């Protein structure tokens, strides 16, 4: 019996059975679930949430031969959109997309139901409130999980609505909890619950605990208590804590701005540092620098396309890949164009600008004029919560760290390696270096390749923050040049400090000037600064730079 006929006969069987007792139009293969899924699929508002409640209340029977799926798995399946509705057979199935078709498996995952066109397989409709409800249900199911992490997630989901958990349940959980982290979370949940207590002493204790909690809920609770509590002591305590909170919030507001500035600065430094090498060390104006950044970003997209299953590994791998690839492109550019133009920086500017146009159009023609999606791996999403008002976004934090690592590696390479020594020698006095046996042409290629490779790495970092598309590079080229010139050409440390300064200055001005004006002001400041001190913050001294 072929699969299709099998499905048909199963469907026919179901029609027969269903005709006898319920008029089920949504089938799951498990009788007990039919009405629930039907209510969810067909229903609206409350009927749907009730159906979900009923689903969540299902416990798998203990008998091992029974293959009824776990309630959490089903809820998660609905949330993730893996459970779909196959229209022709009116069946709820597990579905995996494959081109224009879906591969379907029965709800208990025992039967392969073949494949069908994506037209025929529909998603179970979700919206924000249903999604939130599902999350809550899944989390609540996690309260009794064997896995402490799942329990922690479940408790954290409840922390803003302590009223939704009963005191009895909470006490029971407190009594049985073994894991320390989960215990702490449980206790803070319990404190929240005590704020509603009738005993002033208990409330006072709870208020005091909130002193260290800067979250907006905690602050709102304190403000509420300060104005409304019947007990004066509690009110006074609340007032003191409110003042303390305000001070802290203000302080951490500045810390946040500083972090934003550093993070913007790190992006600027990453974008500019490759330029600092080709421009600063070699005196080559590389207008295609932005496009090398773009190529790096496309590397991380291409790697993710190659390894769609492991986004994180793809991202990490794309760092060396981007470095080598853009480095290679850089070397090709140097060998084919730039080496004929040494000593004529303005001509290199024009030629490399031509190259930048070609690279852009190549991406448009051979990849796509559209932006391409680059996913954030798990470890880079989310925040590092310092306290209720101050949190560091992980992706920014990683990029800041990444920037510093790249910078340190580069400084070390130039300072301590043989290659670095030769680069410095060539940049300081080419003919003398040649006389000492340095193959200057080779060093030129490699240095330019190094600058290009770093641009590629910067592209990988940027792919985590912004669009990856053919225009990516143009957005950074003017900024990069400003950073390098402001810092002082030929000075890597200058680039670091100037990038960070500009980032922070931008972010300090943004709240009162607005994003656009802040940027204009920074530019105007830079123009005036360079007119005053043409050699930047940290001018390179000595004969090499004169003229």
């Amino acid at each position: 019996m072929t699969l299709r006929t099998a499905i048909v006969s199963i469907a026919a069987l179901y029609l027969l059975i269903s005709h006898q007792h319920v008029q089920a139009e949504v089938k799951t293969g498990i009788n007990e679930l039919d009405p629930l899924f039907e209510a969810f699929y067909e229903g609206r508002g409350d009927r749907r949430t009730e159906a979900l409640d009923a689903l969540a209340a299902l416990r798998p029977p203990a008998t091992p031969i029974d293959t009824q799926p776990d309630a959490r798995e089903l809820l998660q399946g609905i949330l993730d959109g893996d459970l779909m509705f196959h229209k022709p057979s009116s069946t709820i199935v597990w579905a995996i997309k494959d081109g224009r078709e879906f591969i379907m498996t029965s709800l208990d995952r025992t039967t392969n139901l073949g494949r069908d066109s994506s037209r025929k397989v529909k998603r179970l409709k979700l919206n924000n409130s249903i999604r939130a409800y599902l999350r809550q249900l899944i989390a609540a199911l996690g309260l009794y999980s064997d896995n402490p992490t799942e329990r922690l997630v479940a408790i954290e989901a409840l922390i803003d609505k302590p009223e939704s958990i009963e005191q009895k349940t909470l006490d029971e959980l407190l009594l049985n909890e073994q894991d320390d982290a989960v215990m702490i979370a449980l206790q803070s949940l319990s404190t929240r619950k005590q704020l509603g207590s009738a005993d002033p002493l208990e409330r006072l204790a709870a208020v005091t605990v909130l002193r260290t909690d800067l979250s907006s809920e905690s602050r709102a609770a304190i403000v509420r208590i300060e104005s409304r509590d019947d007990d004066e002591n509690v009110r006074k305590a609340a007032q003191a804590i409110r003042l303390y909170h305000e001070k802290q919030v203000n302080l951490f507001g500045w810390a946040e701005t500083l972090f934003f500035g550093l993070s913007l600065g790190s992006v600027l430094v990453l974008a500019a540092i490759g330029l600092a090498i080709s421009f600063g060390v070699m005196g080559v104006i590389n207008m295609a620098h932005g496009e090398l950044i773009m190529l790096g970003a496309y590397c991380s997209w291409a790697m993710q396309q190659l390894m769609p299953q492991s986004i994180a590994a793809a991202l990490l791998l794309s760092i060396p890949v981007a470095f080598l690839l853009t480095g290679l492109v850089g070397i090709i550019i140097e060998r084919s164009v730039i080496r004929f133009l040494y000593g004529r920086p303005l001509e290199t500017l024009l030629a490399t600008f031509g190259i930048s146009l070609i690279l852009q159009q190549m991406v448009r023609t051979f990849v796509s004029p559209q932006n391409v999606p680059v996913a954030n791996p798990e470890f880079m999403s989310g925040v590092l919560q310092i306290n209720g008002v101050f949190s560091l976004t992980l992706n920014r934090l990683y990029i800041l760290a990444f920037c510093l690592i790249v910078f340190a590696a580069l400084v070390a390479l130039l300072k301590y390696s043989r290659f670095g020594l030769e680069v410095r020698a060539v940049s300081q006095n080419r003919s003398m270096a040649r006389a000492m046996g340095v193959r200057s042409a080779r060093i030129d290629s490699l240095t330019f390749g190094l600058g290009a490779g770093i641009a590629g790495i910067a592209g990988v970092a940027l792919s985590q923050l912004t669009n990856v598309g053919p225009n990516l590079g143009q957005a950074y080229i003017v900024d990069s040049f400003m950073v390098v010139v402001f810092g002082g050409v030929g000075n890597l440390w200058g680039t670091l400090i100037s990038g960070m300064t500009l980032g922070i200055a931008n972010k300090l001005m943004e709240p009162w000037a607005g994003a656009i004006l802040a940027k204009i002001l920074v530019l105007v400041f830079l123009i005036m600064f360079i007119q005053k001190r043409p050699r930047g913050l940290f001018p390179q001294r000595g004969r090499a730079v004169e003229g």
Partner: protein
Amino acid sequence: MLLINRFKLSALAAACLGITSLSLYAQDETIKVGVLHSLSGTMAISETTLKDTMLMLIDQQNANGGLLGKQLEAVVVDPASDWPLFAEKARELIEQESVVATFGAWTSVSRKSVLPVFEELNSVLFYPVQYEGEESSKNVFYTGAAPNQQAIPAVEYLTNVIGVERWVLAGTDYVYPRTTNKILEAYLQANGVSSEDIMINYTPFGHADWQSIVSEIKKFGSEGKKTAVVSTINGDANVPFYKELGNQGVSAEDIPVIAFSVGEEELSGFDTEPLVGHLAAWNYFMSVDAETNDVFIDNWLDYIGDDERVTNDPMEAHYIGFNMWVKAVEKAGTTDPAFVQDAIIGVSVPNLTGGYSTMMPNHHITKPVLIGEIQDDGQFEVVWETPGLVAGDAWSDFLDSSKDIISDWRAPLSCGNYNVSTSVCSGQNL
């Protein structure tokens, strides 16, 4: 693999282009239709697709016997995202190539740039993108949404269904967001929202660093009242914006963002994970369950030869606009723009959401308004729609400067800018 396929495709496209430009001289008995979309520069991201859509529609029309017994011929030019070049290319299409109708433009400024050319040479332009309104030209047919066909229903949905009380109006600093936000602000205040519950923010094109703004939105939204962001942020700035929202832990369940410029095509360049649950308001979604839509999608995927491609609202607008034009030409029995302008008013054609769209006397069309939630597969799930069709309103009733102005291109009024209180017709005809 992908690279090679794309290469072949573009080689083919280049060959086709070569052939079309050759056939230009070979055959004289064709009806020429202009396609004025940027194929290079910043707007190529969005506009290239519309060029392909037009080529597909014209191909199909030819396969079905052409128009008035003649074959149609697309004349494609590239205004390269350069606004003055739009005007120049429009003139080239009309004067040099003698096209009888043009489909094109995307940004407001490109439309403003070509407008005088179409008016001077009395040709017709079909403009397929949602826009700010405050305009009604005799020579332009607006098949995208006017603010009352997108922004106002979206806010109604958020207020009535989601219960939003605080509003962040965030946009890119240009005329479309400015107008939309002005209309929304007036609308919200008329509905009792106090001005301290409205936060307005503008950012430059391609803004990439959203840290401070998202942090502000987060603070604004954490003061107890349900908050939503109405986003008129333009294309490129969206990815970093949504990424920052996701990273700072602002979920669609806390502070939903409803966007007017994010469609399926834009989502295909996003990692949709952090966007799930955020909203968009359009007049068409690829996921709409309708027979005409299924056929359109199949045709598109076959035409473009890539199953991963999507369809979007401006494509539907071209679909509607092109069919309206075809019908109007058949009705008038001529392609002469002067006659087509009259014949097209009142023409109804199927849209892709299972209904019909009609060209109104103010050169805007009737459309349903849909609110969709972003799903993790880059598609939208329709969560709400207007009960009937909404007719596009050229002049917003919520702005002091335009509340008395109406547009009606039928005789005897024949005016796109008629002030009912002073009985003066200003603008174009002077």
